[in-house]
């Protein structure tokens, strides 16, 4: 039983890590998003393994169902999908790598060095008694309305604010919204932007707004 669990855990871990690595390295952003979904599924599976079924379900609903889809939409909207031949990482990606690896090492090394036996909780005294009920949505729901009521409310407010904020930010200004650009205009605009970009790398905000 334990071995099976360990094998399953290994597979899940491999899925999560592998998918995550692909997310950060994939040249195509769409692919990266798809790998991200895979990674989310792996995490959901891990939750199942950790006996948190509700969270697992929420994970799939929210992350895969909402966030990942949202990301895909965003990718579509920004229209820089392909990215083949275009650098996907920044110039100084090695610095980031160094930081990430050293952070990982800084966590891993003391963990490996300092552990005094693996941290396995002792079996409950009533080992073979009826297993305890797993904490389910009921306990969670009770927690939300008693213990964490305030936080729950705040989270709700936060979501509302984020919703409104997202709308405000993403909305085009009124003047622009009135006037839908024709394809020709949009093409010209892009050409212009491209020319500017070549002429003056590191485009400045003022340049574009002035140009319009």
């Amino acid at each position, binding site marked *: 039983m334990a071995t099976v669990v360990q094998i399953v855990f290994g597979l899940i871990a491999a899925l999560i890590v592998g998918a995550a690595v692909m997310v950060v390295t994939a040249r195509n952003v769409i692919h990266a998003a798809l790998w991200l979904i895979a990674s989310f599924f792996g995490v959901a599976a891990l939750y199942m393994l950790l006996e948190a079924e509700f969270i697992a379900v929420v994970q799939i609903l929210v992350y895969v169902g909402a966030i990942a889809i949202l990301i895909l939409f965003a990718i579509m909207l920004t229209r820089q999908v392909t990215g083949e031949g275009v650098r996907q990482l920044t110039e100084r990606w090695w610095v980031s*790598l160094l930081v990430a690896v050293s952070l990982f090492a800084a966590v891993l090394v003391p963990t490996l060095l300092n552990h005094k036996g693996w941290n396995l909780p002792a079996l409950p005294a009533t080992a073979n008694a009826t297993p305890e009920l797993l904490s389910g949505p009921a306990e969670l729901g009770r927690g939300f309305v008693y213990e964490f009521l305030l936080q729950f409310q705040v989270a709700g407010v936060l979501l509302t604010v984020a919703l409104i904020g997202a709308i405000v930010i993403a909305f085009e200004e009124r003047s622009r919204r009135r006037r839908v650009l024709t394809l020709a205009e949009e093409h010209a605009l892009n050409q212009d932007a491209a020319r500017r970009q070549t002429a003056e790398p590191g485009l400045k905000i003022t340049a574009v707004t002035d140009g319009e």
Partner: protein
Amino acid sequence: MTQAIPLEAVLVLAAALFCIGLFGALSRRNMVGVLMGVELMLNAVNINMVAIGRYLEPYPYVAGQTFTIFIITVAAAEAAVGLAMIIAIYRTWLTSNVDSVDSLKG
């Protein structure tokens, strides 16, 4: 399963996920890629929450999961706002690359 897998293993997995996400957030040029890296990091945190709640908390161990829910909520909000911003930035700068946006440069 708590007898089969030590807590440290889960935590190391979470740390690995976090670091990968960090790398992604730090080095992807595409803003959406950055956002994805951030989501990975948040997931790593969620794993930590759930695992520690599961292993170390006494019985109904709902606190860890509750926090996870909150984090997911925040992550959703963050993703929504972040993507909105990406679109807004794209609209003005005609780019979705992070390193093109350096008006803070000294």
